[in-house]
């Protein structure tokens, strides 16, 4: 694997530009130095001179319609290289789903656990990038250190930070909120290479509780991944610079990062997707594939209780208004 000459970020096969600093990757050295001044493309079928067709995205013959295959833009859809094994098996996930439905608290309908119909419990290895990088981070913030008349004083500084194992969701199936809650609880060290028998056969590789799980394809192209990773690194930097800000309280923390030596691995992270039905409506919940105690989902609301609460709030507001009106008289 080669690295970008400007920022030392790892380049992948087919990259035309560096994903971080956009430095073009030099074309592979060509065999013939003396390129012809002009080149006439001829149709492979009928021999007529042909032109590039915007519809076919390839040179196409105007006479016989034959299209020539050419190199496509190097912005491929990605596939996962690593996967984290499921440590929660189906039986555990199902038991956990039932106990979760039963313990949904006062807001959920009392009959939820009894009437909910579990329709499917599917193991899914969802797509994410695992990013490592170092970055020079320039920061600016307000803090209470050195404050005079105002409670805040501006400060600025620079610090070099290392980012390890930043997980950037690439899933279309799970929402951003669901991914955010799932990611901190994965044991990233347990990752095994996909389609790599040598790694799978190592004795310390954890056994997979759901080896048949569907692996989500990366629905985001490589060029779009750059923006996701950059935003994730900036979000992490906003937290990591806080110990470097003088004072005890701060606000308006701003960061500018010059990322270097970024490496990105595509990983598939385990989760059980629970689809259930309650009184005709479909709901879903996610059970963490390595931590059965973590279940994410919005259960149905008990509308009767909600209506009562709204009625009480309206009455209380009316009573308050009446009390104020009476006092002012």
């Amino acid at each position: 694997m080669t690295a970008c000459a400007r920022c030392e970020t790892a380049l992948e096969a087919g990259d035309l530009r560096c994903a971080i600093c956009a430095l073009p990757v030099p074309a592979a050295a060509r065999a013939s130095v003396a390129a012809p001044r002009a080149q006439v493309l001829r149709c492979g079928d009928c021999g007529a001179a042909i032109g590039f067709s915007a519809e076919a995205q390839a040179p196409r013959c105007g006479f016989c319609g034959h299209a020539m295959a050419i190199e496509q833009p190097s912005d491929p859809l990605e596939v996962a290289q690593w996967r984290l094994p499921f440590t929660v098996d189906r039986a555990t996930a199902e038991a956990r789903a039932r106990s979760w439905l039963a313990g949904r608290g006062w807001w959920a309908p009392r009959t939820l656990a009894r009437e909910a119909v579990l329709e499917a419990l599917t193991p899914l290895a969802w797509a994410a990038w695992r990013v490592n990088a170092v970055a020079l981070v320039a920061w600016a913030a307000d803090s209470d250190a050195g404050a005079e008349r105002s409670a805040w004083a501006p400060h600025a500084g620079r610090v070099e930070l290392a980012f390890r194992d930043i997980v950037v969701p690439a899933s279309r199936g799970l929402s951003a909120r669901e991914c955010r809650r799932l990611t901190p609880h994965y044991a990233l060290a347990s990752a095994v290479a996909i389609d790599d028998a040598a790694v799978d056969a190592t004795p310390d590789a954890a056994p997979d509780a759901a080896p048949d799980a569907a692996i989500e394809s990366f629905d985001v192209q490589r060029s779009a991944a750059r923006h996701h990773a950059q935003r994730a690194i900036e979000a992490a930097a906003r937290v990591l610079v806080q110990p470097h800000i003088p004072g005890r309280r701060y606000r308006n923390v701003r960061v500018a990062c010059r990322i270097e030596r970024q490496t990105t691995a595509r990983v598939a992270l385990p989760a059980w997707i629970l689809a259930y039905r309650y009184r005709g409506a479909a709901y879903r919940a996610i059970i963490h594939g390595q931590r059965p105690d973590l279940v994410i989902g919005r259960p149905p609301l008990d509308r009767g209780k909600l209506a009562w609460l709204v009625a009480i709030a309206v009455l209380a507001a009316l009573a308050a208004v009446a009390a104020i009106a009476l006092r002012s008289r």
Partner: protein
Amino acid sequence: MPATFACGHCGASLGFAGVRTATCPYCASPNFVERPASAQPPHPAFVIAFAGGAARARAQLAAWLGGRSWFADARLAHARVEDLRGVYVPAYLYSAVADTEYTAAIGEHYTATETRETRDARGELRRETRQVTRTEYRALAGRHVGYVTDVLVSASQGLAAAELRALEPYELGQLRRYAPALVTGWIAEEFSRDAEACRQASRDAALDDIGLALRKFLPGDSHSDLAWRTTVRWESLDPILVPVWVLALRYRRDRPALRVVINGQTGAIAGRVPLTGWKVALAIGGLALVVAAIVALVVRGGAPG
């Protein structure tokens, strides 16, 4: 072999492969002369291919014309499209490492209690206190670091930098390494602006971007006296061809044709639509009448009766 033409009117220099034309696709000037190819034109490194053909460009144009405001000349809807041409426009793609040192006065709000003395209706002195928000300015010097990427600057004589900017953004994820097969059969303009001038224009555009980023970067409730000095290094400037549909719209016999440019990849359209004078005058007159009526009502209502 592609023939090279130079427009005597706007200076565009174009290479045609398999196409002969009597007029310049940019300015429709017939003053178009064949000339020998320039000695060492830069070789494009990348190309963004046209997505969709002339029929799609016409459909986008029709939608654009249909969506113009009420003030636009009504004859535009029936305008005749002249010389719709797909041109690969030369440009440079610039990126660099940018280090910026800045100084600014950062405004931090604070609340102060203000006391003032007034006399009431009976002439007695009364003391009023109220809370006011004031701003304290503190000097801040710091640095901003990052990369400047995806700055695209026109290297064409026929398509000005501002016109290309109006067509941006191009989806650079669809960038391809240049191959003659990608532009064959299309008009490709030669790189007719000096690379050094384009580098300077790119730098200026990059500095503008950094200025915008800095304004968002500064802490505090407000700021003033922002000054910055940026050092760029590790610059890269790569020749690229971008797809543009250029066309002339003939909507009135007594007016020159309206030039419209369309992004050949995304379909974004840029062009200045001529407005109808009497419609604008009518709208201004109507607005003035409404304002006058409101003022009259207020004045009459406020007058002692």
